[in-house]
């Protein structure tokens, strides 16, 4: 499947901004299922330079400074991607979750180490007994990991109400757990905390889902803005993505931008502003499927 993505962010300030420094996670990364064919970042006012870098998790980032006075900043990221349908293992055939927990603690290969790194608390995801407790009922000893994780995804989808505006980027997940409301980012954090509290490697994925669904399918939640979901490490089966907001296994309807320990590692735009006082942000995302021909999505993408 081929997608064209336009992600537009506009900041308006009540007072003049003299200087601002920004770091963006807006250009989609490559993965075993996804290849970014083209990407560009358009910033107004135009910064003297955009410095491309790669972060710790291999995500592309851009760093730029605006040093002319402004009241508004517009950032538009345009990308074109090729996404292959994923071959997913049968959930009941994945390794037992408790065996995997032991394995990831002991194994010292490069891959297992980067998975193990996703077992620890991170800035937005503390590990709390209450989360382990919530998750526990889906994780009987010996149950295949993906099977259990899918049930957890389903339960979060069922137990939590999607309500835009109910939370902000700084709402602690304890509160999300208490009120059982939030947005995709909160649900991802909740599920990550549940999995890590059990000793399982889970990471945060930021990206998009297509704006108009394929014929005959319902429009997914979170399609008009940035989306977020969870990836869980299933040992030999690799990282498998789960979307608790829509209760589904991720295949070729999700565009991955970046992954990290939680939102704080991959926030789309991070900035330090001098001046400006109050600000408002408008975000618009458009994900268009430009070729829906099933034959083309079978291309081998390499890794």
């Amino acid at each position: 499947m081929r997608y064209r993505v336009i992600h537009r962010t506009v900041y308006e300030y009540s007072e003049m901004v003299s200087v601002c420094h920004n770091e963006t996670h807006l250009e989609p990364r490559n993965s075993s299922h996804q290849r970014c064919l083209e990407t560009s970042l358009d910033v107004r006012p135009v910064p003297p330079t955009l410095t491309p870098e790669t972060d710790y998790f291999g995500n592309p980032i851009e760093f730029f400074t605006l040093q002319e006075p402004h009241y508004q900043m517009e950032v538009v990221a345009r990308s074109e991607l090729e996404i292959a349908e994923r071959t997913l293992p049968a959930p009941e055939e994945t390794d037992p979750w408790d065996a995997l927990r032991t394995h990831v603690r002991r194994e010292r290969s490069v891959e297992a180490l980067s998975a193990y790194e996703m077992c620890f608390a991170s800035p937005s995801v503390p590990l709390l007994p209450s989360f382990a407790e919530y998750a526990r009922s889906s994780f009987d000893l010996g149950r295949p990991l993906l099977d259990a994780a899918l049930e957890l995804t389903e339960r979060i989808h069922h137990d939590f109400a999607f309500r835009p505006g109910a939370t902000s980027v700084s709402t602690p997940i304890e509160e999300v757990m208490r009120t059982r409301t939030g947005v995709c980012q909160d649900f991802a954090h909740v599920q990550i905390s549940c999995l890590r509290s059990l000793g399982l490697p889970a990471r945060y994925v930021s990206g998009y889902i297509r704006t108009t669904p394929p014929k005959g399918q319902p429009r997914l939640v979170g399609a008009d803005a940035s989306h977020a979901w969870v990836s869980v490490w299933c040992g030999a089966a690799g990282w498998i993505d789960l979307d608790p907001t829509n209760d589904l296994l991720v295949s070729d309807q999700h565009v991955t931008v970046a992954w990290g320990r939680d939102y704080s590692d991959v926030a789309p735009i991070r900035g330090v502003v001098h001046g400006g006082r109050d600000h408002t942000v408008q975000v618009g995302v458009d994900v268009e499927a430009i070729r829906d021909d099933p034959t083309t999505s079978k291309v081998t993408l390499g890794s």
Partner: protein
Amino acid sequence: MAYEPVPGVYDEIFDPAGQPRPAWASLVESLEGLGAEELARRCESAQRMLRENGVSYNVYDDPRGLHRPWELDPFPIVLGEVEWSVLHDGLAQRAELLELILADLYGPRRLLREGLLPPELVFANPTYLRECAVDPSVKRRWLHLYAADLGRSPDGEWWVLADRTQAPSGMGYVLENRIVLSRSLPEPFRASHVQRLAHFFRCLQDAFHWVAPRPVEEPRVALLTPGPWNETYFEHAYLARYLGATLVEGADLTVRESVLYLKTLGGLERIDVLLRRVDDEFCDPLSLRSDSTLGVAGLLHCVRANQVGVMNALGSGLVESPALLAFLPALSQVLLNSELKLPSVATWWCGEPSALAYVLDHLDSLVLKPTFPGPQREPVFAGSLSKARRAKLVEQLRADPVAYVAQERVSLSSAPVWNDGRLEARHVGLRTYAVARANETWEVMPGGLARAGIARDSLVVSMQRGGCSKDVWIRTAEPPHDLSLLRPAGSAVELKRGGTELPSRVADDLFWLGRYVERVEGITRMLRTIVSQLSGRELGERSDLEPLCAALEEQAPPGIVQGPGTSGLEAGVLELLFESPDGALRTTLRTVHQLAFSLRDQLSLDTWRVLSELSQTLDIPYPSLVSARIALNRMILQLSAWSGLAVESMTRTLGWRFAEMGQRVERASYMTSLLSHALVLSAPTETTRLQMLLDTAESVITYRRRYRGELQVEAVIDLLLNDETNPRSVGFQLRALYDHVRHLPGSTDGAPPRIEERIALSLLARLRLADVHELSRVEAGKRLALEDVLARTSEELPAVSDALSRSYLSHSGEVRRTERF
């Protein structure tokens, strides 16, 4: 002199037989030669020297406020050459090892893959800054400065208690301790053949050259401090000056195109090396902690682009975790292929099941510490816990073993400290330092900072907890030759003048220092005139004081200064001077002291002493009108000393201009206020009023010389308002102000005048064009023309100050503070 070592521990000075150890012999002999009385005098002189130099150590929540004097014990710790060489080699090896560990953990992570270090110590560690990791192909130096805290056990062995790898503190105090001690005890110092420290600091300066990413003859170095409220701010200012670095706070720096710049009066100046005293994660609010106000947004990108050298590299705090001590012997074998020379205090990381089992079995004899830094930082002595708290601790250990480290309790050695004329034994710990060389070897400082516990049985040695510091003397067989950081004779020096490189914040602080000192002077002079008029006058005879009281009231909290006709005036004056905590004078003096403290690297020692004494003048036990008079006179003298130093000792740099402008703006503003209260409304007899005006403005002599006879309003107005040759007149201030403004960078002949130039010119022109006869003319009891000129002047003066702020003191529009009244 009587001295009783602590039993059961190693005593630094005496061996078990009660004989001085060989390294101490010449010190003991030479101290005995001095005699007890002389020794007491020397100790006093050392303390005085420290106080006068303003050496301080800030202790948070200390009732004595911001600046607690630094405590230095007159007895050094003396180590012999052989013993030292063991420590020296051990420290150099350890620094090398920690450098290799950092390079691995932020790069290829071989230590994790090969199971040499548990991954939890990295992944769960909040000081592991992923943003600082580098591609394994990039060669980066992580440690440039290293410090280790050492303790000596009863068998005489030295042990490392902790490693300091991000921004080790204390080197500045070591220098100051050495200077003070070698001056107050010159005979013992000479007799002991003490190794000098200068070579170590020369190596630190050398490091600036190879740490700078671009080859420059004189790398521009900035020392980043968290600010005057930091516990070791004195040291930051001291080191910056000693090393030739510019002392900066985060807000003084800015990033443009991945290059780090200092905001100066002349514009942006590139920084090559940043010597930081700010902790890792606070250094960059963009890429690291977003709530930090101490850092520079974009610094990390400058590092990645290799445009600035940061000492130590960001992320180097990772190897400070006490858990690492348990793994160092094995890591030394693997990474250096040699035994660890200097042992660490026995350490168990509870994340290993066998270690946890040992710790639970031996809990009462161990000290427990958090593995990672966090809110709970205090070590816990399990043996001294109540039963309930001990049980709770065991529970916590079992629940989260990764988070705990257990260490053996070390019975530190003892050494004598001087306490009120007696020698007492205290436990001591030693902090030692090493600096990296370009060739990857390490230079160890021959000396260090010893710290003594607060009481005989106190095992905790820390400046934060009280206690005192000691100098550390390393002996050498040969008498050492002196080396100083000054350049050797004959080497070419690039001559420099000017000073546009002054950081804008420093210019701002100098401007306000000038203003506040002048405000103190204005209030002091008004008070002095009032106090001298109060004695011996009846209530009814005091109406002449009205204008002074009104002018003074503008500077005081409401309700304190009462009318001269009431009996409350005396009490009000005394309250203003000595008691009122937020009264004009006390607050202003406090601000002067704080500004002077944050300008420590800019002010001469004498200037600092004058300002520091000035702020202590009002600490008088029994306030009365008589003591008030004495205090006010003393203050006038100190203020004169300040002005004298400013005139005679400050080079005419921009810094001087800013201090001057502050002073001129302030003096113009209180003289304007005084004149308008005294002369706008005419009174039937104005003689006394004019007399007091001349007194307050210290212009009596000039007036008498010029006019001899009767006091005339016209002549007084001319002398105090228009006469540009009288340093106390409004006209003199405005002329000086205009002159300064025209000499600021960016002001060029021929170019259209900038806003501050226009305002200064308009102020000066108005006064020059005013006719003195017209100004003194009374119409219906009022001098209307005078009122108009004074009102407009006082209206426009703040505009100069604001315009200066906008043009010079805040780059790119950030106004750090617009109002400081």
